[in-house]
């Protein structure tokens, strides 16, 4: 910023205060509910003020549920999701922006289209694919008649089978198949001065060196932002981990948390315990935010001429 505009700074501060209250309000309620007892809640419902049962509720999460252990799974899923999304998105955006390829537009459109339908409404068919990731290949072989040919030559048709259900790969892969990261990196690359690319090429940098020496360091901010955001969304994913994992030891903490809500009529959920669980489950993401916050939005001041 150029100058100290006091009036503006005061307004900005006010805006941030309001924004933080907006964000913190629901979080405070989570915490205040987590600190009530179930009996209290049964009689009074949620409360605006905190009680004294927070530790007890948290303790029962540790003793009565597998959530603490499931957090390890969440960790694996969230981390692999973030890492894979960052890396793959970065690479594909790189190919789309920096290579002279005729199909760049098509590929980008294909990737971008994935933001249009959430996993939630294609979860059934995704489950079918995950239960045998070769099924599309088999289907293609069948449909093209190739399999008939193969069957005639080798005796049996090709029917490959590999289920990724209940594996970490299976939990993560459908989450990674999403275009946000690619879109984000593409937009970022488009704002980089063209001459940097030219300079690097003059310096003899080929695609690999340009990628590692120039693009990657310059993208650090975008990388960190995407990493944190995908980590968090991986962490809080619900439906796919629920569907894709069948054994409790593959399930993630959020799934475990949702299991605390009873399904049958008239059973009043133990909200204090659930909220205590939510608090515990949120600890790692919040720590992650605090840790990487520094990189999140650190501006990269490009020195032009």
């Amino acid at each position, binding site marked *: 910023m150029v100058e100290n505009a006091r009036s503006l700074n005061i307004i900005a501060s006010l805006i941030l205060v309001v924004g933080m209250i907006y964000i913190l309000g629901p979080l405070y309620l989570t915490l205040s509910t987590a600190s009530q007892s179930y009996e209290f809640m*049964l009689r009074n*419902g949620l409360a605006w003020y905190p009680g004294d049962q927070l530790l007890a509720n948290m303790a029962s999460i540790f003793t009565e549920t597998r959530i603490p252990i499931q957090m390890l799974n969440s960790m694996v899923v969230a981390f692999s999701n973030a890492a894979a999304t960052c890396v793959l998105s970065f690479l594909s955006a790189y190919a789309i922006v920096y290579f002279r390829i005729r199909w760049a537009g098509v590929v980008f459109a294909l990737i971008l289209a994935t933001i249009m339908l959430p996993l939630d409404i294609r979860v059934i068919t995704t489950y079918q694919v995950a239960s045998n990731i070769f099924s599309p290949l088999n289907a293609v072989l069948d449909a093209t008649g190739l399999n008939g040919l193969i069957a005639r030559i080798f005796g049996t048709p090709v029917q490959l089978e590999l289920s990724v259900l209940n594996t970490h790969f299976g939990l993560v892969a459908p989450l990674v198949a999403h275009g946000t990261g690619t879109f984000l990196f593409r937009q970022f690359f488009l704002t980089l001065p063209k001459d940097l690319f030219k300079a690097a090429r003059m310096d003899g940098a080929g695609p690999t060196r340009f990628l590692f020496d120039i693009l990657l360091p310059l993208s650090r901010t975008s990388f960190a932002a995407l990493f944190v955001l995908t980590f968090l969304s991986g962490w809080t994913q619900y439906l796919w981990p629920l569907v894709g994992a069948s*054994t409790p030891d593959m399930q993630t903490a959020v799934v475990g948390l949702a299991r605390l809500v009873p399904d*049958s009529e008239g059973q009043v*959920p133990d909200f204090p315990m659930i909220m205590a669980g939510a608090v515990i489950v949120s600890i790692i993401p919040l720590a992650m935010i605090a840790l990487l916050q520094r990189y999140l939005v650190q501006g990269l001041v490009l020195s032009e001429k």
Partner: protein
Amino acid sequence: ADIEFWYGNTGNVETAIKAQCDAFNAAQSEHRVTCVGQGSYEVGMQKAIAAYRAKNHPVLIQFFDAGTLDLLLSGAVVPVQDVLPDVNWNNYIAGARSYYETSNGKLYSQPYNSSTLLFYTNKTELEKAGISKTPVTWEEIIEAARKLKAAGHACPFVTDGDTWRVLEQFSARHGLPIASKHNGYDGLDAEYVFNTTFAAKHLANLVEWRKEGLVKLNADTKAGNYTAAFNAGECAMMEGSSGSYAASAKAFEGKYEITVGMAPMYQGYERHNTFVGGASIYIMKGHDKAEIEGAKAFLDFLRRPQQQMFFTAATGYVPVTNDVLDVIAESGEADSPKYATAAIGIESMNQPRTPDTRGIRLGFYVQFREVFMEETQKAFAGQQTMQVALDSAKKRGDELLRRFEQTYKGAKLP
């Protein structure tokens, strides 16, 4: 053999299911059941569908009442009665049996976690308003409600207007059909008729009573939910699932006295059975003999009175075989709150039945429940009259039925 059982429940029900699985595995060494919670009936069903198509489905799958027809027509399950012909299926109380059996009386699935609709009152509050006799008919309820209101009570009677409660169970116990062809038992070409039965009048009454401040809906309560409102003492009476009992009793402890009885009738109507709620267990096709043996063993185990009692005590679901009541009586704990709903629940489901109170056998029924809710909510909100709401729910429901019929063209209802 090692078998898998997929269930949908969560919370304390899940805990109880797991305990039963563990108990089964501990009780014998021949079979091993892995019980996989799917988080909800819907997810369990969807996964079963996908898994069945990918041919890695489990042997046993639990599913809830409203999806019965889908499984009957799926071609993916075998009737339990075929697999376990030697079991005395008649031991199941009629209300539970009829819901899951074919039109010619063959039980398709084994009823598991079962519930039915009951009537709850906050005796303390009623007495405070000078009502000493627990009301049993709608007329009495409304009279009591007026008294409560006069006494300054903000919420005399509460319901959520859920299809299961206000239409299905109401129609059943009043002996009213919901759809033609005996609620579809006699063919996929059924049509909805509820908009022409006494149920329509009842629903219109609810609207009037709500306007009068006697009946409240979820949204009218501080708690935001009818059971929570009842539990907190905010509302004095409610119609709710048998499953509500445990939480209510716990919330009332030391503060209020609770009564629970059969759901209210209109005067002049003969009481019929209520439907069974909850879910039952199906055996899926495509498994070898050893696995079927395992499944049989597990189903046998679950049917045992001790297991049913355990389940009832742990969850508030009601037992559904006649022998269990005897065992409860023998156990000396018959008056324990654990089993408070057992006897009354069974009694309610064991009331005289007609061909229209066997159950519901209607296509895309879950979608219909949504349609019904949507339309009646509009009526409660005053956007349309209840009759208009019911008429359009019927119309939309019939469309669903026709499409379902077309989808299963050529399929025969078992």
